């Protein structure tokens, strides 16, 4: 019995070196899938089943959650076997450089500022902050021009929605000014 067991190990050995042919970050995605699937199933167990409804509210979450867990496990296996994700290309995407996650973090920060301030500062100001902050995060150093462009964009969009579409975006602290 030892021979058939040994053969695969020797066949696998060249892959043993942890190198670029293994995408270990993908294991994180696999783990996330397992957690999401498991939570979906757990959440479904808390539902009450109604009357006269042979399917009930639980079946769909059960199936979706269970399959998600299985997919997570399959992805983990595929990853360990050397499956590498093919990242998406695009017009402005240069995949030859390492990913620049600092910029992404800055952008998410700027967006979160918008989320937190839009209700009381109003769209005209929060939107301008979003534009200026995002442009700066992406490497623009023409601050004055960006502020002008941002303000024009946000004030124009506020008026366009207000007058043209009848959607009233919050004016915030500029209430009465706009």
């Amino acid at each position, binding site marked *: 019995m030892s021979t058939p067991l040994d053969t695969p190990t020797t066949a696998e050995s060249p892959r043993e070196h942890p190198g670029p042919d293994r995408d270990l970050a993908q294991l994180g995605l696999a783990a996330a899938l397992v957690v999401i699937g498991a939570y979906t199933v757990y959440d479904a167990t808390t539902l009450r089943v109604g009357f006269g*409804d042979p399917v009930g*509210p639980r079946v769909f979450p059960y199936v979706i959650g269970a399959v*998600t867990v299985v997919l997570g496990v399959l*992805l983990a296996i595929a990853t360990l076997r050397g499956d590498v994700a093919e990242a998406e290309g695009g017009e402005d995407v240069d995949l030859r450089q390492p990913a620049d996650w600092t910029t992404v973090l800055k952008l*998410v920060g700027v967006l979160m500022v918008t989320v937190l301030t839009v209700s009381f500062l109003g769209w005209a100001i929060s939107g301008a902050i979003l534009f200026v902050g995002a442009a700066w995060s*992406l490497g623009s150093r023409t601050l004055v021009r960006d502020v002008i462009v941002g303000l024009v964009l946000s004030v124009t969009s506020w008026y366009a929605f207000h007058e043209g*579409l009848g959607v009233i975006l919050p004016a915030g602290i500029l209430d009465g000014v706009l």
Partner: protein
Amino acid sequence: MDNLSLLMDGFGSVLTPQNLLFACIGVLLGTFVGVLPGIGPAMAVALLLPVTYGLDPIGAFIMFAGIYYGGMYGGSTTSILLNTPGESASVMTALEGNLMARAGRASQALATAAIGSFIAGTIGTLLVVFFAPALASVAVEIGAPSYFALMVLAMIMVTSVLGGSPLRGFIALFLGLTIGLVGLDLNTGQPRLSFDQPLLADRIDVVVVAVGIFALGEALWVAAHLRRSPLHVIPVGRPWMDRTDLRRSWGPWLRGTAYGFPFGALPAGGAEIPTFLSYLTEKRIAKRKGVDEFGKGAIEGVAGPEAANNASAAGTFVPLLALGLPVTATSAVMLAALQGYGIEPGPGLMTDQPELVWALLASLLIGNALLLVLNLPLAPVWAKLLRIPRPQLYAGILFFAALGAYAANLQAFDLFLLVLLGLLGLAMRRFGLPVLPLVLGVILGPLMEFRLREAMAISGGEVSGLWSEPLAVVIYVVVAIAVVAPLVLRRVRPAPAAVAEELDIHTHDEEKVR
């Protein structure tokens, strides 16, 4: 000729000065946004959804039609002038189109793309006029079991047949289905996956999902990998064609249309296969005629795939209007837009709201014609947009994504969801997960559950009720074939893969040249 007179009624309701103005604005906005580098048609439509919020449905539809075709045309302009296709459907156009542009024939490439799009779009839309009502009148008859089966078919097609990796397709699909679960259960009114948040119990707005995954996710992904060296943009004059170009283009236009429409109209969807087939056919015909300019910028290689792309885009309206099934990313966003007007695309749509459907089809034809009229002279202006500095461009995309998600419900919480979904979109691009199955899962998941429960309630809880209709059985057989056939084909005939590989080498050479 009942359909034609209904279409004329549609024109009647659309052809007012105000609506024509909406159509013009739609075409201009759609092209403007579509030309911007990094923005494909799906993202263009998603970003422009809020523009139509205050309009009545007909005004909104005609604007959509303009945005839709404008966004598609804008995408092909970018791929010809930059050789960096924004989406898989324009890969084939980019191959020869960019070679033509580099050989100093950018104007002719843009002209053949524009006229080809117009011809294919018009023929395609007219075919929709004839096919969709016929299909819808059949579709009204089909019951919940068959409808459930159809949705399974659409999901299987989009995930396992079209994508490169079935495992990743299914991961994306089930993430989408999970997002679709969030909110109140239809029958019992209990919140699912809502974490005691009343705003989550209201369900996540599909617009927020579309904008988050398409626009924000893409912008964040580009931000992580922003090209620091500027791309070379080819200057362009006013598009024109001489008689030789025209003589060489009309065959590919018509053949491309013939390839594109059926693929768009079937639930198998997508423009990748027809554009690829059209490219191969034109190459073969050129070789037989002994005037093979492929690899040096052949006009046939732009005319054919571009027509196939647009005919397929028109074809997707058949399953979308008649069955409520979106088969491309752009049509998924269109479906979300229709739902925003309380319109539930599906078998009932054609009979319940015929005036809207015919107005939409008439709008598509008008939008298509306006596209040609406005864009041939404007091409040099659009080409200038490719030089927009990237920080401001992507800051603008973030700005409009936030505006779109926020204006839908005026909830700051939606913006928070947008950020989360944007991060999910970023992760999907990092891990090579396709976007379309996810959006399809979000949209079709709840509908599917509704149909399943309906079918089971009818059968009194018998699982066999799911295949009680002959049509349902047929569809499940098709699903089985769709799953098994690729596996068998791969084993029996490796030919298509070899062809694709040859083409890969070709594209690779392109990269090196650049």
